[in-house]
Structures are given as C-alpha cells and as structure tokens.
C-alpha cells in the first residue's frame, strides 16, 4: 500500500462514508461535505483533461452549468424524475463538450485556455439572458429530483451517499481510463506530441473523446450541485468557477485523480472555514493559494511522496 494513488482516495472515501455517524450528521456539515464531494467529482473529471490529456480548460464550469440548467429546464417543464434528469444533464454537457471541443481541441496551449474560456463565457451570458429561467437572478428549485416519484434525495443522508457513490464511480473511471490503452495515448501525446504522431497516433480523436467524457462527468456534478443547493444561477458557469476548479486540480497535485479529489475537498473546506472565521477572508484565501503554488510544487499529494 505504498502508492498514495490508491490508499489516499480509499481513506478519503472511508472518512466521507463515516462522517454522518461521527457527529457530522447535523444539516450544515453534511451540506458542506456534499458540496465538497460534488466539486471533487468535477475536479476529478477536469483532472482527466489537465493531468491526463494536457488540456488546460478554463471552461469546465460551463459543463457543470449544462448539467445544472438541464435540471432547471426539466423542472420548469414539470419533469423531476431522476431517470430523466440525470441522463439529460449528462447528455447536455457531453453534447456541449463535443461541439465546443471539436473546435477548441484544434488549438493548444494558451489558445486552448482562451477558447475554452470564451465558450464558457458564451454559455454564461446565454444563461443570464434566459428570462424564462430567472435570468441573472437564477432559478429556485422547490423540490429535489425524485426517484420514481419518491423524494429520497430530500433526505440529507441519502443525498450524502448518492454523492459519495457517484464520486467513487467517477474517480474509479478516471483512474481506469488513464491506465488503459486510450489513457496511455493521451498521456504520451501530452508529454511528447511529436513522438505520438511519429508512432502513428493522431491525438485529436483521443483528446476530443477525453473532453466529452470529462464534460459528461462535469454535467453529472452540475445535476448534483443543483439538487444540493436547490437553486441554480448563471454564476455557476462563471469563469471564476472554472478557475476555482482548475485551482483545485493544481492544489491537489497533478500526479493522479487522487490529487484533484484531495485538492477539491481542501479548497471547499478551507474556503468555508475562512469565510466564517473572518469578514475579509478573501484577503487571506488568495495569498494562501499563491503560497501553495509556490511551495507545494507537486500539490498536496506531492507532500505525501516526500514524507
């Protein structure tokens, strides 16, 4: 068990599974943990792009937004069934990823960052102008998604374990994908594209597929976020949110999906703690993040390898 890629996530998952029974069962802490897991899921999917494919996307919040707005659109139409809502959110995000990725992946480096940012902002302004769904003010969901008519997700404990189960599944999927033939081509193309091409691999279809898979997982996180907050607003798609996600991935470390997982949880928890501890918490949070980038070269999980 010397490989933190495996034991660290298992430890985190065990902790999350035990949390409701260790006195954290009170409403607010569970809401906070759910939020951490949802962003963990989104960060793990972004990790497939950044750490796996070398695609630094600054538009991943838009994928979450697609999932969240799918919940809104269906809710407005009176549809709140999980078997419709979840697939719709995932497919909406996957489709958005396919359409924007088909163009974005033709670029690389800084251009890729800018074009994903541009697509993200397009989605942001589009949702802001949807007067039907509250425009800038957002849209309040009066009920969470139902499972065959039952309101299980209203129960915090059930919702906690739904989030945890999906997080584990997505983490495992990313882990397996990166080790597969497909992932090997992605990693090789990230490290040395010329070599990959000289071997006969065109990186484009591999990268596009990774982008769509990550988008779909981002959409799933969006569906969960909408249900967690029972509210959806264009701010979910703002580029700052994409920046936060990217930061979670880098803060945790790019060594594997376990880094994104830890980074997201640390980010959400520290943000929450600081915002309660002081009024001008951003004055501390910002420099703290900068220090992390300076001194934690391999991210949080990089510390483990040395220690």
């Amino acid at each position, binding site marked *: 068990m010397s490989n933190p890629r495996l034991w660290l996530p298992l430890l985190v998952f065990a902790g999350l599974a035990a949390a409701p029974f260790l006195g954290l069962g009170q409403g607010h802490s569970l809401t906070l943990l759910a939020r951490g897991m949802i962003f963990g899921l989104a960060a793990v999917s972004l990790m497939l792009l950044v750490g796996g494919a070398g695609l630094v996307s600054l538009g991943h919040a838009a994928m979450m937004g697609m999932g969240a707005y799918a919940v809104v659109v269906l809710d407005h139409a009176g549809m709140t069934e999980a078997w419709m809502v979840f697939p719709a959110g995932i497919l909406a995000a996957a489709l958005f990823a396919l359409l924007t990725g088909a163009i974005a992946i033709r670029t690389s480096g800084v251009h890729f960052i800018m074009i994903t940012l541009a697509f993200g902002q397009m989605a942001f302004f589009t949702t802001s102008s949807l007067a039907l769904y509250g425009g800038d003010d957002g849209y309040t969901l009066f009920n969470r998604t139902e499972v065959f008519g039952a309101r299980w997700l209203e129960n915090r404990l059930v919702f906690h374990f739904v989030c945890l189960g999906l997080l584990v599944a997505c983490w495992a999927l990313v882990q*397996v*994908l990166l*080790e*597969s*033939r*497909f*992932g*090997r*081509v992605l*990693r*090789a193309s990230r*490290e*040395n594209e*010329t*070599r*990959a*091409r*000289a*071997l*006969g*691999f*065109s990186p484009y279809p*591999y990268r596009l*597929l990774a982008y769509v898979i990550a988008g779909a997982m981002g959409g799933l996180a969006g569906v969960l976020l909408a249900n967690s907050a029972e509210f959806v607003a264009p701010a979910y798609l703002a580029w700052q949110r994409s920046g936060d996600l990217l930061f979670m991935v880098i803060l945790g470390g790019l060594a594997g999906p376990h880094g994104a997982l830890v980074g997201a949880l640390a980010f959400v928890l520290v943000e929450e703690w600081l915002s309660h501890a002081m009024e001008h918490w951003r004055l501390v949070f910002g420099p703290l993040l900068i220090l992390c980038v300076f001194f934690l070269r391999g991210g949080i999980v990089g510390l483990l390898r040395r220690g």
Partner: protein
Amino acid sequence: MAETILALHGLRKSFGGLLVTDDVTLDVRQGEIHALIGPNGAGKTTLIHQVSGTLAPDAGRIRFLGEDITALSMPARARRGLARSFQITSVIPSFSALENAALAVQARQGSSFRFFRAASREAALNAEAIAALAEVGLDARAATPAAALSHGERRQLEIAIALAMRPRALLLDEPLAGTGPEEAERLIRLLSGLRARYAVLLVEHDMQAVFALADRISVLAQGRVIATGTPDDIRADPAVREAYLGEDEAA
C-alpha cells in the same frame, strides 16, 4: 535489383526566398542503408521532415511501397510502416523504456480506443516491446523511466521504438548525435544488423560511421543531390570533394 521501398521524386521546398530542397530525387531499396550526407545547412533535416510528413514539400512526389504518400500526414505514414528517429532524442520521458516500446506496438496492434483494461498488463504488447528492447540491448533497463536513462541508452531506446513499430523503412536522423565513442560503436553495430530487414535512410554527421555502414551515399549540397553512389564512388567524386570532403581536408 532489390525492391524499391521509398522513392523521392523531384522534391522541392523553399522557406521564403531560400530554396532548401532543390529537385531531390533518390530511392531507398529493401535491405540497404542509404546515407544522406552534406555540409551543415545542406537541407538534410528538412528533407527528412518532408519524408516523414512533418513538412509538406512545395513540389514533387514521395512514393512508399508503391503508393503515393505525398499528401498523407505523419501519423498516416507511420501506420503504413515508415518509422523515424529524431536528431534530438524524442521519447516519452515519464514512461519506462518498456512502456515507450509498448506504445509503439500498441500503435499498430489493435485499436487504442480501449478503455477499461490496464495497458501495462497486456502481455501481447509487453512481449513484443521486450523483444524490441532486447534487439538493441536495452532489455535489462526495461523498467527504468526514459528520463533516467543515459543519453546513449535513450538513443538505443529511440531505435527500439522504431523497431517495435515493425516498419518497412527507417528514417534515422543522426542516430549517433551526442554519443561517446563506445556508445557510437555499439550503435553502429546495431544499425549494421538492421540492414538486412529494412530499407534505411540514414542522415549522419559521423563520416566514419557513414562510410562503414552505407551501401549507397547521396551527397546533398545547397538542397541539391550532387552525387549518389557507393562509398568508393563518393570518395572519388571530384564534385563531392569540392563541396564537402574538401572542407575537412582544408581544415
């Protein structure tokens, strides 16, 4: 005469006003090492780039295994069996030597759109990769990350990767660049052993190596092929002496 594997016909390429490849015609046959030499700036690497597909020629045709590949991309040419090594070692640094070679096997064996099975545990890939490493004498270092290999070992790995592709033709761009005398000798022996199975186009600065290895030599000067022939022909050719070898003697 042996089968012609690779044939360049009237290749031309210019950057702005500078003609770097000027009507180059040459061929590489099965079982021969065809060396390409020439003074610095003669356009050797530019020519290799056009053959491998990183640069598109302005005019002319490239035929490979009887098929016109001029319009094909580098990956498409590689899949047809055209392998290249790079002047500056080009491997995947974080991959082990084995994984570097296995990636090359994977490129031609089955689909790479496979998502659930760990590639590093695919015995079929690893067996062929090990065989390629053994051929260059690197099998003992299979588990070492490429970044941790010595320069000479990385040059060997680069050749192992090319062999793992099971190519029909090898484009070797200065395989001896930056190696010490001992490493160079080992590589020369290795390259000599490849001759029987492949058509090799070799660009090399080390004249001793070229004359030891090549069956035929083409001399490039200012983008033009000024002579093609056996090593003896080339040594005796007055135009070559003037354009190229003469420089060395004067120096």
